[in-house]
């Protein structure tokens, strides 16, 4: 059993499509927003795969760096969305 570049890209495609599906399917704003980190995880997987299988010696870390940045962007997006949604009134 081995992992090829194409199988990494398949996984990345699946994550991006699932994230898009979640964002489109949910009726509630913050639930739909939860699809964004899934899409960004897919993009990060593609970057990590590129850095593992298809990069030159000099550029191997750039894919990993992009994966780190995408995880931070996902966190920022969710924090901003929940912040904009605001706190519920106390009962």
């Amino acid at each position: 059993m081995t992992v090829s570049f194409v199988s990494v890209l398949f996984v990345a495609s699946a994550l991006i499509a699932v994230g898009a599906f979640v964002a489109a399917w949910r009726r509630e704003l913050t639930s739909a927003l939860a699809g964004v980190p899934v899409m960004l995880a897919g993009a990060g997987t593609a970057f990590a795969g590129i850095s593992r299988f298809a990069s030159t010696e000099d550029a191997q870390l750039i894919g990993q760096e992009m994966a780190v940045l995408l995880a931070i962007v996902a966190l920022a997006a969710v924090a901003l969305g929940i912040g904009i949604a605001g706190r519920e009134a106390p009962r």
Partner: protein
Amino acid sequence: MDSLHAIGFYVSAALSVAGGLSLAFLESRRRRGAALAVVGLGAAGTYASLSAGLAGAMALLCYAVIALLVARRDYRAIALPVDDRWRQVAGVGAALLLAVLAYSAYRGSFAHATFYGGPIGTAAIGRLLFSHDALATEAITALVLAALVGAAVGWRRERSRDERQREQPERRK
């Protein structure tokens, strides 16, 4: 890549895809937070099996915080005025997106290179962040700062006039 890493990759990938799919159908916020934590765990495992351990650790941390944020009880639910028909069209669109991406991954003639396996660590990634990709790092930090300020401002809830009037007599007592 040896079999152990390959098994780890496929198990992690299945975890993250299953966690992502369950996000579409779970109703409780706590369960959605748990599903996002599973997505993060799967993504971290995928990165780690692709020799990106530091990226995996960062993803695990970021997705744990995202899961905690989503699992909170006290944010407002904002319903989007979306018709059922459009949701179904969006579902078909996501399936088409998957088909197009998978086809391009299968048919694309990508450049292949052998893995060098050189030193990968915090210092090397830090050097890249602050020298080679300083602009991207600045852009991300500006985005994170804007997100945090926006979240802090948005989180402050303006009290309604009724609530303020209700509090006034209580203070006089």
